[in-house]
């Protein structure tokens, strides 16, 4: 059954491998995926461990439902202490890797130590082998995966790998699988690089016995219908995530020129419909594809239409590449967006971090805080497409003073650049913000300020807040499975009830990350997509594990608290701009200048923001400083951590 997948412990220093079962108690408390990874990270690292040292553990996992009959359970989760933030490192990707690892017998890998020379792991039908990777070092992410398949003589092998950025210890290097699926935040590829671990390859032929197969398949038919009939997923299946970028830009919610503006005007060449045309022209009408077991098919395939990389194949781009190579550096060319997307995919770098840091450097350059000597001769002005792409390549290889500084992440770079450069760095907990502007959306501002891995939209963003849903609909969603009778507002510029929405979404997203499901299959972009009430059936039919919606909620709450406990152990302090639940001053001081009439002029109200954080802490059972109360830890069964269940 799905529950008998194992944890593989690998020590790269000694070469020792140990395989252990996952006790049912651990399953019920932490489910799997990101939640159980949070438990493993808290238990297997010590306070203050060096993120790039042998004592940091790298966790790679699938969710509780991975590789079962449940829909879209393709997500692979990667966790470690982050070399970018010094706090929680966590990233999640689609593709086909986690199901393959599950068929090979494993749901979690715990990798510690450091190999003397480059190696890769081969996970195969209950065994884990450490193999030489000297010949793979220096290859791009795609070439690495093909070279492993060739070496093993099996085209069904799935690998998660690092590219040159991970090898060069760029602190926001990705772990990647396929052409563009990226565990692309908090520098998990850098942790792999620090361990001399080039790849983890998996091939499995071990059956996963479904507890109630007939019911599981029958239920999944309805589940698929629920998912594919949602308007948001039909749009995703046509345009991919660029449609979100287009809509966000339309009303003025898009971070532009490193936060100077909130809209990229006349961006017609990089709008989703234009990118769709290019994909159709270069690949054909059926250019949308999907991850394992998913019917949404939100991933476009394309070839770069022109320029020095013309004809090269890639996938995407996603919202984040439109932001990184479009709005942030104020570039308006599809060729630039598609080329930039290709470069970060091949080198294995976080497009979001790359685009944000270069846009930040562009603002510093225009302000005279850095000069042309420091940019290595580049005229790093906004709108300079060539400089943008050149700097992207330089960062991957740490070439030149500025690129080398940026490759260490925003906060260390600001310390090297000096002057008042930090004031312009748009980050939370050391991680750059998504290419969205939250000044008109207090709920989203609270989300990015309090997200566990730093500024992030995939940890607690109530994106449906933008849909102006009737209050009755909001109440139906947000009052289950835990009753809630407090305020809720349909108005997305309001502060009313938003802390509860963020708290609810935090638990919702943690639950799907534990189950291994994609967020497009829950209440992220669509209000009518499955959530807590739907998951008990999927879990029971596929695994036989009986859980109520309330128990799933509590497990998610517990896992979120563990992530917070990890961050507190590593120095989280509520109002610390570098390590806290706090936003850059520009959110409070500089009004939106573009967008809809109801958006221009808005800032986040400092006093109301503080009240939102207070209220959010109350919902979570934290004290005013953001630390869990003793009663909360007792209620969640976390009073005696670390407990070393696994």
């Amino acid at each position, binding site marked *: 059954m799905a529950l008998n997948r194992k944890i593989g412990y690998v020590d790269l220093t000694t070469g020792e491998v140990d395989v252990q079962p996952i006790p049912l108690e651990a399953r019920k408390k932490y489910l799997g995926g990101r939640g159980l990874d949070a438990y493993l990270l808290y238990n297997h690292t010590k306070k203050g461990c060096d993120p790039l040292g042998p004592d940091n553990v790298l966790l790679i996992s699938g969710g509780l439902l991975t590789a079962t009959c449940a829909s879209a359970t393709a997500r692979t989760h990667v966790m470690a202490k982050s070399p970018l933030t010094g706090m929680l490192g966590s990233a999640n990707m689609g593709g086909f890797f986690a199901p393959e690892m599950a068929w090979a017998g494993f749901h979690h890998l715990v990798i510690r130590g450091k190999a003397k020379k480059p190696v890769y792991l081969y996970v195969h039908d209950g065994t884990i082998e450490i193999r030489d990777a000297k010949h793979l070092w220096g290859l791009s992410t795609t070439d690495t995966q093909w070279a492993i398949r060739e070496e093993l003589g099996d085209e069904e092998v799935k690998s998660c790998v690092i590219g040159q950025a991970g090898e060069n210890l760029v602190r926001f290097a990705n772990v990647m699988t396929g052409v563009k699926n990226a565990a692309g935040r908090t520098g998990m590829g850098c942790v792999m690089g620090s361990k001399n671990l080039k790849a983890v390859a998996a091939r499995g032929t071990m059956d996963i016995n479904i507890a109630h197969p007939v019911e599981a398949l029958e239920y999944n038919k309805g589940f698929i219908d629920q998912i594919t*009939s949602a308007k948001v997923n*039909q*749009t995703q299946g046509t345009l991919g995530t660029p449609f979100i970028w*287009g809509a966000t830009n339309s009303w003025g919610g898009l971070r532009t020129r490193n936060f100077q503006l909130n809209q990229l005007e006349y961006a*017609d060449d990089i709008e989703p419909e234009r990118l769709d045309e290019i994909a159709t022209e270069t690949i054909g009408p059926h250019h949308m594809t999907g991850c394992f077991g998913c019917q949404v098919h939100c991933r476009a395939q394309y070839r770069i239409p022109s320029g020095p990389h013309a004809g090269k194949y890639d996938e995407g781009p996603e919202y984040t590449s439109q932001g990184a190579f479009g709005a942030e550096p104020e570039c308006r060319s599809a060729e630039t967006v598609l080329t930039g997307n290709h470069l970060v995919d091949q080198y294995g770098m976080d497009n979001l971090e790359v685009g944000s840091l270069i846009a930040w450097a562009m603002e510093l350059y225009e302000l005279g805080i850095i000069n042309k000597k420091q940019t290595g001769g580049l005229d790093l002005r906004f709108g300079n497409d060539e400089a943008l792409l050149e700097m992207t390549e330089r960062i991957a290889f740490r070439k030149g003073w500025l690129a080398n500084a940026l490759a260490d992440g925003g906060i260390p770079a600001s310390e090297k650049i000096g002057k008042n450069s930090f004031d312009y760095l748009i980050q939370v907990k050391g991680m750059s913000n998504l290419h969205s502007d939250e000044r008109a959306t207090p709920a989203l501002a609270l989300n990015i300020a309090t997200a566990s891995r730093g500024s992030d939209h995939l940890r607690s963003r109530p994106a449906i807040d933008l849909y102006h849903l009737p209050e009755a609909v909001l109440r139906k969603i947000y009052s289950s499975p835990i009753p809630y009778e407090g305020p809720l507002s349909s108005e997305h510029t309001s502060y009313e009830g938003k802390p509860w929405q963020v708290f609810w979404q935090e638990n919702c997203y943690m639950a799907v990350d534990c189950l291994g499901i994609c967020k497009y299959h829950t209440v992220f972009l669509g209000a*009518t997509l499955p*959530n807590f009430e739907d998951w008990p059936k999927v879990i029971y039919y596929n695994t036989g594990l009986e859980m109520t919606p309330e128990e799933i909620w509590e497990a998610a709450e517990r896992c979120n608290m563990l992530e917070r406990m990890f961050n507190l152990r590593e120095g989280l302090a509520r109002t610390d701009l570098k390590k806290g639940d706090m936003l850059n001053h520009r959110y409070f001081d500089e009004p939106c200048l573009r967008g809809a009439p109801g958006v221009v002029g808005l800032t986040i109200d400092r006093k109301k923001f503080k009240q939102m954080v207070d209220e959010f802490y109350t919902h979570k059972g934290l004290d005013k400083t953001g630390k869990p109360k003793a009663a909360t830890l007792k209620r969640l069964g976390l009073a005696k951590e670390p407990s070393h269940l696994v």
Partner: protein
Amino acid sequence: MAVDKRKKSTSESLRNTRTYGKFRCHNPSCMGRLQPEGGQGEVQCPECGMAFRVAWIRPDFPRIRGPVWEVNRKLAEEALKNKEGN
């Protein structure tokens, strides 16, 4: 496990509230429902005056492609001027 197959979950019951053929005006102080005619390329909100270019996912499924830049920029500048005046 006592799985009640008849009872609809929140997400299943909310499915009936989906509306096709319409979208909301992107002005948060308006959010009026707009319903373009089939194939229409632009639509203007009768309430707040914002204008949008329309794209069609399917013949019965329109979405906002983006603003009509000149129209909406003018509205934004006027709104900003009024807010700064206050």
